[in-house]
């Protein structure tokens, strides 16, 4: 530590060069910490549990024939029955929107119908009573649906009093103190009252980018439209075969068309493409930044070594060992990096306030600032190895030569 005093003195003597490095480190630190935080957030976003049997699900849209509502319903039931009878199919249901398909509808959720605002919003999945079984959702409280609960409707409304199943995320938002309390309570979907009869652990909604994507409501009523969404769960490992089987079966009817035939894995990949792309970009930014900083520290260290050959020679001539020279330069750089990090912490906190203000993001938590500091510090140490070894190789004879 006794070296520190002369180091600070010599740095103060020629301020500009170290100041540049300090600034560079500070700026880098700020970007690095923010990028790492953004990256971790994206990572959590991408790995948001879907709650679905992703590996065995697939979905498609199909036309249904029929002059009037009754005929359409009868045809739909017959189609679903024949799909269910296929050997490769485990379960099938029709549902108003497919998770992660970016198409769907939702409601405002209230506990008091006369409230002018709303507590939150949730996506609405209405369809056959087998939705929970087909998606393989994990029912953690209350009960699911059975055949007697099932109905048919032609308007997007939850006006039959059969109750709903909601996700735990939604229950938590309604009753932040204890989500168990939601069970049996009445909530209002827009204006329609419904009793919560069950709660599932996870289920992802139609839109991957929606902040309320984990708020979902399941309702056992088949919503008849021109095109119907069908969700099929194949037996394990038989999804490809099952997709072929279903198409073959349905296309026996020449007037039928099938569209958007996609496996859940495909849907998930498309849905999170933007987040994945941003994730990759952030990784590149972090890598590039670390390299540039290391380059800067490296250049600066070499510069000081070059400038101080004579001084180093004198130190060596006066009895400093090579290790001491290496220690001197390492310490000097560590000091500079530490100053940079200190300024960087202040910059990060300032940048944070701006980000929170302008982009509605949450601020970077303290641990990230520590991680970022450690990364930059190590990068700086690595970069200074070669120049300081070079400095230690300066011969003591250097001192006797005139410049």
């Amino acid at each position, binding site marked *: 530590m006794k070296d520190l005093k002369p180091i600070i003195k010599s740095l103060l003597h020629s301020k*500009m*060069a170290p100041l*540049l*490095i300090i*600034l*560079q480190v500070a*700026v*880098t630190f*700020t*970007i690095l910490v923010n*990028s790492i935080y*953004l990256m971790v957030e994206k990572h959590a976003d991408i790995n948001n549990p879907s709650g679905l049997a992703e590996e065995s699900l697939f979905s498609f*849209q199909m036309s249904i024939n029929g002059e009037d*509502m009754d005929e*359409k319903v009868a045809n739909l039931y017959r189609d679903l029955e024949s799909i269910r009878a296929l050997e490769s199919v485990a379960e099938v249901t029709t549902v108003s929107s497919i998770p992660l398909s*970016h*198409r769907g509808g939702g409601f*405002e959720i209230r506990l008091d119908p006369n409230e002018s605002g*709303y507590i939150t919003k949730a996506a609405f999945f209405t369809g056959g009573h087998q939705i929970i079984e087909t998606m393989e959702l994990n029912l953690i409280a209350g009960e699911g649906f059975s055949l007697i609960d099932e109905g048919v409707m*032609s*308007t*997007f409304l939850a006006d039959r009093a059969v109750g709903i199943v909601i996700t735990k995320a939604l229950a938590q938002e309604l009753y932040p103190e204890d989500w168990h309390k939601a069970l049996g309570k009445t909530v209002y979907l*827009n*204006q329609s009252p419904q009793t919560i009869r069950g709660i599932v652990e996870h289920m992802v909604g139609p839109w991957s980018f929606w902040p309320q994507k984990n708020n979902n409501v399941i309702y056992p009523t088949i919503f*008849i*439209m*021109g*095109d119907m*969404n069908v969700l099929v769960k194949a037996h394990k490992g038989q999804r490809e075969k099952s997709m072929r089987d279903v198409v073959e079966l349905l296309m026996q009817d*020449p007037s039928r*068309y099938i*569209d*958007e035939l996609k496996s859940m894995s495909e849907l998930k990949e*498309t849905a999170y*493409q*933007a987040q994945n*792309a*941003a994730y*990759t*970009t952030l990784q590149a*930014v972090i890598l*590039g*930044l670390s390299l*540039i*900083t290391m*380059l*800067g520290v490296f*250049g*600066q260290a*070499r*510069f000081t070594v*070059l*400038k101080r050959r004579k001084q180093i020679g004198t130190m060596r001539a006066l009895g400093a060992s090579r290790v001491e020279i290496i220690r001197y330069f390492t310490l000097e750089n560590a000091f500079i990096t530490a100053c940079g990090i200190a300024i960087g912490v202040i910059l990060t906190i300032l940048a944070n306030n701006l*980000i929170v203000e*302008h*982009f*509605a*993001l949450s601020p970077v938590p303290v641990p990230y600032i520590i991680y970022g500091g450690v990364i930059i510090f190590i990068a700086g140490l690595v970069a200074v190895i070669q120049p300081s070894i070079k400095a230690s190789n300066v011969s003591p004879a250097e001192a006797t030569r*005139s*410049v």
Partner: protein
Amino acid sequence: MLIYYIKLAVISLRRTPLLSFLMIATISVGIAATMITYTVSYMMSKDPIPSKSERLFTVHLSSWSPDQMFRMRDGKEDIPMFVTYQDAMNLYRQKVGVNQTIISSHKAMARSSTQPINEAISTYIRPTTHEFFGMFEAPFLYGNPWSSLEDEQGTQVVVLSKQRNERLFDGQNSIGKEVLIGGLLYRVVGVLDDWPLIPRFYLEGSEMFTEARDMFIPFRTQVNNNWLSTKDTSIYCWGDYDLNELNSVLNSECVWLYFWVELNSAEQRSDYLNFVNNYAMEQREFGRFPREQMNRVFDVNEFIKYSKVVSSDSKIAVWLAVAFLIACLLNCMSLMMTKFHGKGSEVGLRRAIGASQQDIACQFTCEAVLIGFAGGVLGLVLANIGLSVTAQVYSHLNAQLMTMNIELVMITILVSVATSILFGGYPIYRACKIQPSSQLKSL
């Protein structure tokens, strides 16, 4: 003299190739990162139709239910961006603007009349009116839009995109040929050329960066054919309706159509808004428009802003990249300090034989400009490589977003040169201050 300085700068750069390379490389990496993010953000938010963005307006009406608001947005009540069929037709028929158009959407199986039925593909279709093409400056490769008469009569005619024309008719002039849409014959009257409209401002935010649709048909024919694709159309309803019956939707309060109007000048905006408000008041007499009236018209750029299409992600990316550029420039600055420090004796010599401080400053500025220029050019190359990589990674976005126009190329070089002069300033100042005597002593 300038040429001599440039020559000196080139010699000086070549004398220390590693240092010069490092300087140019750091600048170019910083410039490339900044320009990649800036290009995407710039292309996302630039004025898509500068010639008339101030006199094209979309109309939003307060036709929603008395019981509850349409939705909350940013803590305030918001009205739908779509209008009902009744309102679209009423506003369209009154023809108050120079041009007005109704934009709908539909999805159906489509093929050419010579293809077998199993080659039909699911196609996104844009039912609209003949004014659409002129209003939004859609370029025609062959043929023309259909006529207003064909609009009124609901003649089954279609305008194809360039891609679809290539797929169905090998890119030949296909005017007069026939395609089957949802099993019905449509005659081709026009083929569009490439239409890179960014953002595609006449649509809702989530669709603004998509390609134009492959088929455009008269809106009247959608109505006549009773076509409504609930899986494709954004449709919001209150009151009585049945989504299975187009007729029921037409008479309902469901909102699902975009309405755009072109006025002679931006000044007529308030007149048009008055007209819309008066229209709403008239409708009240029929028991419609029960809510407090918040009708509004948005011009192109207002509507883009309202749709929030420039994601905060892309704005953050620009700021990150600018900070990255600053880090690179600081790095370059310290490299320049190193460089000019090593040239102390040369400066001393030049000063001793009569060069003034200005001369030295001029000489080194030339060098800084040269470094900046080289960094800019290399940065441009890197940025374009980066953009093509970005286009792969972000394949869900329109590739047009990842292309630089000439303006951006100029900006790149300019920023690079300007910043290198700015950040070279201090090293140059230091070099000028070198005393001739101190350097000459040791020579």
